[in-house]
């Protein structure tokens, strides 16, 4: 795969998000609890959905490390969650499915399983949906369901949660009326989608740390910049250390020759806490501004919390990883 393709896409994405996803626009979406449809449409046009689709299926076939770069930029610019799901799940799974339908045309919603969650049984699912979506992909560990949202028994109830404006909803549907997608690559695609969540966390953490360092240099109290106080320097140093650790986790997973879902789970468990601490420290370094709606630091914190939930929640992840080591010891 062309090693510069990911960098080109990431660069395009970065410019597009800089233009279309300003803090004001992100705050508007959060306040209205509705995804920014103009932004989503612009992102669709960039072709995010094709990035993770293999070349032989007509996609761009980016390697995982290249996808991580795209995800990292998405994190820095707080890309809509639905766009990440289209890139990591809708594109690869739908194109791989029995019908081989390209996802273009229809507007898709998407939901996916938390790490260590029970297999999907066709019950209500958490999904991310935009206005006008006609179909939703409910992803499970080994198979997925395509749900027609036009049916009377498909019911979507908004549940904005901690990171509003992303279209998070609860979808009830009739499993018998849905189409099942299953393929050999299912587990790999799901694992990759989780690595991309960590890449996004890396971007969020890096960006909020940069913003905090800049603020600490500019803001003066007691006649000197905040950045001159060792108490602040050490907090910023801890934030930067956290950023390095998260990046190392992504780097480790991105270069594995074969997916290792247990390692993904373990690094996810560690990373969600590190990222959350970084975002909390960012609020603290900003003082009152960190707590202000219009300054938008809370958006990074909200995203960290939401991504933590999407991966399975910190405590569940810890218990899952704990279970794994106990099981390993007992079989040795």
């Amino acid at each position, binding site marked *: 795969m062309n090693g510069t393709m990911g960098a080109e896409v990431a660069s395009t994405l970065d410019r597009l998000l800089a233009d279309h996803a300003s803090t004001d626009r992100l705050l508007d979406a959060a306040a209205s609890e509705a995804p920014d449809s103009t932004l989503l449409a612009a992102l669709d046009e960039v072709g995010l959905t094709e990035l993770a689709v293999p070349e032989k299926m007509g996609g761009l076939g980016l390697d995982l490390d290249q996808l991580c770069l795209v995800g990292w930029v998405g994190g820095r610019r707080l890309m809509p969650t639905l766009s990440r799901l289209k890139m990591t799940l809708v594109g690869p799974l739908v194109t791989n499915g029995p019908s081989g339908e390209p996802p273009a045309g229809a507007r898709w919603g998407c939901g996916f399983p938390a790490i260590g969650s029970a297999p999907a049984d066709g019950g209500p699912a958490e999904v991310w949906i935009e206005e006008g979506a006609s179909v939703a992909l409910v992803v499970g560990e080994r198979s997925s369901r395509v749900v027609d949202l036009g049916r009377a028994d498909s019911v979507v109830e908004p549940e904005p949660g901690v990171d509003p404006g992303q279209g998070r909803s609860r979808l009830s549907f009739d499993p018998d009326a849905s189409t099942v997608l299953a393929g050999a690559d299912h587990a790999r695609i799901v694992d990759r989608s989780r690595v991309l969540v960590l890449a996004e966390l890396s971007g969020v953490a890096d960006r909020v740390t940069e913003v905090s360092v800049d603020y600490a240099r500019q803001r003066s109290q007691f006649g000197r910049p905040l950045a001159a106080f060792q108490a602040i320097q050490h907090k910023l*140093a801890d934030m930067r250390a956290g950023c390095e650790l998260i990046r190392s986790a992504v780097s480790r997973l991105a*270069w594995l020759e074969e997916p290792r879902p247990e390692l993904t789970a373990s690094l996810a468990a560690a990373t969600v806490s590190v990222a959350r601490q970084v975002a909390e420290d960012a609020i603290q370094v900003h003082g009152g501004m960190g707590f202000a709606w219009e300054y938008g630091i809370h958006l990074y914190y909200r995203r960290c919390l939401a991504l933590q939930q999407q991966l399975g929640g910190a405590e569940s992840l810890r218990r899952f990883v*704990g279970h794994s080591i106990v099981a390993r010891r007992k079989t040795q």
Partner: protein
Amino acid sequence: MQAPFSSIVPGSVLPPTLGVESELQDLRLDLRQWLEKNDPGPQPFEYEARMAALTRWQRQIHGAGFIGLSWPTEFGGAGMGLAAEAVLCQELAATSMPQLINRLALYTWGPTILSRGTPAQKARFLPGMLDASEMWCQGFSEPDAGSDLAAVRTRAQVSGDVLVVDGQKVWTSRAELSKWNALLVRTDPEGARHSGLSVLIVDMGSPGVTVRPLLQMLGEPHFSEVFFDGVEVPLENVLGGLGNGWDVSMEAMAYERGLFVLERTTGLRRRLADLVDRLDALGKIDGALASLGVLVSKLDLLDAQVFRTLGHQENGTLVPGSSSVDKLFLADVYQEIFATAFDHLSDEGLDEGWIHDLLESRSVSIYSGTSEIQRNVIARQLLGL
């Protein structure tokens, strides 16, 4: 974008050359087989017996050809990459003695001598590091120069073809076991703080060297005060040139992060496995699952960090200051493991080994640069503050 992609791409920062996954499968299997067959059993608790056992163990591993895997073959190494050392660390973790006693030599001063030493120094000092026949210690800290390392006052004056050393070092680990001391001294009393320093390789058997063991909080003579009274050191034992001591020391400290940290994590993996077994035997595993999950995930994260550092070291792209993250996080993980064990095991599951390791863990955020110094370095070098 604010930085060139080459410096920010999450994937490309770990060169795929650190192929610990499959490229070194033969080495891994050889090692595993050998270690299983030769595992010396639990290490003695008593300090001197433990040191002796660990010395024998490194010598034995060396005899089997597994020490110095990344060193050049002309100096007794195997000429492989750093990834091979990582495999050794990972496999050692499954043994009863997951440590290499001469690690300060193997992972810090050996690489520094390989980088900065003269041909004669390489020939003289490297072989004894590998088979643990010559142990190394490091003379940095002084009574008035701890975190403020550049304040060292131990002097060395050139006199003919020797340097004459006078002064005192403190907290020198394993001084009593060591043949060589990598000693940071002031060779130019007029020089500014960082510029008048040199690193000397000092024979601990020289006349005028006095070692006075200090009991640390475990009651063990792990480190010592070392006094130098007119000690003569040949000029050819200056490492990296007179006046370059600060640079040489900082290079040594940078080596200390990669493999040294990885070596420490292997011991932690072993202890974590012990903790799982012990909690299981006590019927306490269910209540500890989340805590165990935290420890496993943090160890995996520390490994990921070290692999990235090693990848950069191998490629010569390590950003100055970045390995302070390794040391800072090592201390965090190290201390949390033993504190968690103490909390969960309670009286019935705690033996003297666990208590020893909990107390000892408090040293990790102090030795070779306190956690506060690491934060200063990160703030200065990575954030430009």
